[in-house]
């Protein structure tokens, strides 16, 4: 038999050649996944539109940096979970093992399945405002562009998004993973072009270009001044770019979670890990992914402040937020950057290239849902059919139905109810609750699974003799606890009104009902679901 020795001077262990002994994955791959998940273009720009006007004196840039620092602790906590229990299934596996079957089921299906029904129209909305609207406008059809912002437009684009994500689930990740890689490379090239444009053009150049293109494409004259005036008319005063005040800036942190809370989105994809060095590898992928995103945001903000004018960007968002933006489409800063070059072909290409940030990201919408549905079906909580894959087409038909049909329904509500559309942060809140319970699990891990923890590389990572993983879990609990309290008590996040709370509560009720009904039905069939995670005694 062939063997391999691992160790520096003297071998610390010997491995014999056996199935499954794979080398650690490339950090670059998980880094790409983390950058796409904390997508500053699709999710980031979307949230900046609403966050700034919601907390007018808060500083976007500072809040992004504070958020990234705090989410870094979440990265450490999740690295601890991944390296201690390196199983595909992520939060579901960790929570069921550490906190129990019922808890694991309820928070996995709400955070990784039910709430993604709401993410579908949010993705659709982003596709509408970052792709279809600017494209149609640049191609000379402002009315066509504006249609994508209407109720019907949002619904149609949501359906396109659902079909796109469903097809990508059906064809599998193999081809798409390659596409993702090219999308991020293309997207970064597009961003580099924008950086150059913002660097070489002055503020005066931008004002002239903005006025010229807004007039040409939308027939709006003196659009720059009109935008600023519209914000003022709406009662908004843009803060200058700075660092404080801290209070209002901290209130922006729960908004920032909408895009920055997801460096661990690929956590459920990791498989067997074999060595202590893998703690660093897992950590680096997520951590550098998070901080690359943060760096891109900082670069973008600073350059935009220089060329657009920081107040203008804030005013454009505030005017759109208040429905007074003189241009009839979403204030897409990359479209405005493209206007610095008075060439329609260039502008179209730039929009297409920047849309790669969307197309490299959309495929992950339902990927985790399929896994959770399959896991729940294998655990007999859902009917066996939920995990069936069509022999002919190799499509997980029933799980697709369980994902797509509710997503279509919610897309309709989202598109035709402007009130419901304001519940966007519900989509973050429900997943944050799932993360919260994983953070609780990581804190309890050393006490509940002592042997597992002791043998884990995560237990050896210490600062001043204190293991940093559980400590990071505590900080993550504080971060998510702060966000949850802020979301629930402050009206400016639009999630604490009764119908929003009923909507989210219904998801938890549905999950609990599903679990209880499954327990009862299976018991009648003579199957005790309580046995699934009951540990066999060792002695």
């Amino acid at each position, binding site marked *: 038999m062939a063997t391999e020795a691992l160790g520096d001077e*003297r071998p610390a262990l010997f491995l014999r050649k056996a199935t499954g002994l794979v080398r650690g994955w490339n950090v670059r791959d998980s880094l790409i996944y983390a950058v796409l998940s904390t997508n500053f273009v699709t999710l980031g720009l979307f949230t900046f539109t609403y966050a700034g006007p919601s907390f007018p004196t808060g500083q976007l840039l500072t809040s992004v940096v504070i958020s990234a620092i705090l989410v870094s602790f979440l990265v450490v906590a999740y690295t601890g979970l991944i390296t201690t229990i390196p199983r595909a299934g992520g939060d579901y596996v960790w929570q069921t093992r550490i906190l129990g079957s019922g808890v694991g089921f309820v928070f996995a299906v709400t955070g990784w399945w039910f709430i993604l029904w709401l993410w579908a129209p949010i993705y659709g909305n982003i596709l509408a405002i970052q792709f279809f609207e600017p494209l149609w406008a640049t191609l000379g059809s402002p009315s066509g562009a504006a249609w994508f912002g209407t109720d019907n437009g949002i619904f149609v684009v949501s359906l396109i998004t659902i079909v796109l994500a469903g097809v990508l689930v059906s064809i599998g990740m193999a081809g798409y993973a390659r596409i993702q890689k090219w999308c991020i490379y293309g997207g970064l090239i597009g961003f580099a072009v924008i950086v150059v444009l913002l660097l070489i053009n002055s503020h005066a150049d931008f004002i002239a270009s903005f006025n010229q293109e807004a007039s040409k494409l939308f027939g709006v004259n003196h659009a720059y001044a009109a935008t600023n005036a519209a914000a003022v008319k709406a009662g908004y005063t843009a803060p200058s770019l700075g660092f404080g005040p801290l209070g209002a800036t901290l209130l922006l942190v729960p908004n920032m979670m909408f895009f920055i809370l997801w460096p661990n989105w690929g956590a459920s994809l990791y498989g067997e890990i074999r060595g202590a*060095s893998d703690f660093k590898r897992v950590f680096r*992928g997520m951590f550098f992914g998070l901080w690359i995103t943060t760096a891109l945001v900082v670069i973008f903000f600073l350059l935009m402040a220089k060329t657009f004018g920081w107040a203008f960007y804030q005013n454009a968002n505030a005017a759109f937020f208040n429905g007074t933006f003189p241009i009839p489409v979403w204030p897409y800063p990359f479209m405005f950057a493209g206007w610095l070059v008075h060439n329609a072909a260039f502008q179209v290409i730039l929009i297409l290239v920047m849309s790669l940030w969307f197309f490299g990201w959309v495929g992950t919408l339902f990927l985790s849902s399929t896994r959770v549905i399959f896991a729940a079906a294998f655990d007999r909580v859902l009917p066996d059919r939920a995990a069936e894959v069509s022999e002919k087409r190799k499509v997980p038909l029933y799980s697709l139905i369980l994902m797509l049909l509710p997503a279509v329904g919610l897309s309709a509500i989202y598109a035709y109810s402007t009130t419901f559309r304001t519940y966007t942060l519900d989509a973050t809140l429900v997943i944050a609750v799932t993360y919260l319970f994983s953070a609780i699990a990581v804190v309890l891990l050393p006490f509940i699974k002592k042997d597992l923890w002791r*043998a884990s*590389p995560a237990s050896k990572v210490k600062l001043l003799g204190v293991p940093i993983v559980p400590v990071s879990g505590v900080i993550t609990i504080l971060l998510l606890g702060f966000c949850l309290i802020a979301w629930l008590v402050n009206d400016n996040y639009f999630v604490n009104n009764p119908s929003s709370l009923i909507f989210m509560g219904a998801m938890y009720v549905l999950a609990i009902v599903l679990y209880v009904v499954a327990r009862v039905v299976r018991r009648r069939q003579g199957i005790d679901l309580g046995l699934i995670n009951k540990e*066999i005694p060792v002695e």
Partner: protein
Amino acid sequence: MRVFFATDIHGSEICWRKFLNAASFYKADAVILGGDVTGKVMVPITEHNGYWQVVLAGETVRLDTREELADAERQIRNRGSYPAVMSPDELTELSKEEGAVDRRFSVEMIASLDRWLDMADGKLKGGEIPCLLNGGNDDIWEIDDVIDASPYVTFGEGKLIDLGGFHLVSMGWTNPTPWDTFREAPEEELAAKIEAVANLVPDMGRAIFNFHAPPYGSGLDDAPALDANLRPMHGGAVMKPVGSTAVSDAIVRHQPMLSVHGHIHESRGIKKMGRTLAINPGSVYGDGVLQGALLELDPKKGKVSKYLLVNG
């Protein structure tokens, strides 16, 4: 009749102990371990003057007492590795001498299996509860005789075994893997081996196939796609089917009542293939959790009346 099936415990002593206790815990009438019994890792513990030294999870640990040594050995065994106590000189020699590590590995594997089989006595009511063990592609050949010689367990490979009126046949070989392990064969050869055991079965309606390799493309055989350097592609996000077409064809052709598999740890699942219920309970032996399948077999109807995947 209730059967507990687990697989791929890869030397994890905690999983073995749980396996032995599974019959009483789940009130099973028979227990089956589907292959890949032996571990993949050997951890040297160097013996010095009055203390021992070992690297555990990347950290060098000094063990000053026999209790600490025993505790470290327990930890190593529970993770599916073999502790090997040796002098620093022996360790140096082991690293240098051609084939020495292989020989030491075999010694530790056999010694460990011997110990395990001794434990089986009290747990299986002195052989009253049928317990079947089989080899998997990762198991060295020497374990076959050791298992075969045990009075408390039955070695399944290539045999027809009556299990309360059901017909169990076992085959631990798999289709080729990138690791070139012990019991691998091309699909054609695998098909011939399967036919040899399938032909022993008098009634497929009551047959149980215990084949280590899962059927190709069944969803029970999805493993991370690897590049030429055995590195997971695309951050481990891309899975591909790696099971056996020979196993798949045999299930479709013979339609046994039940088909149990292992080999692909991350592909825990259930698949209905015609009238056959195919199951891979997966394995997370490294966590000390024994994944398994609880199967209720109806002797009158000749079918699997209930099943549940458990993480014991």
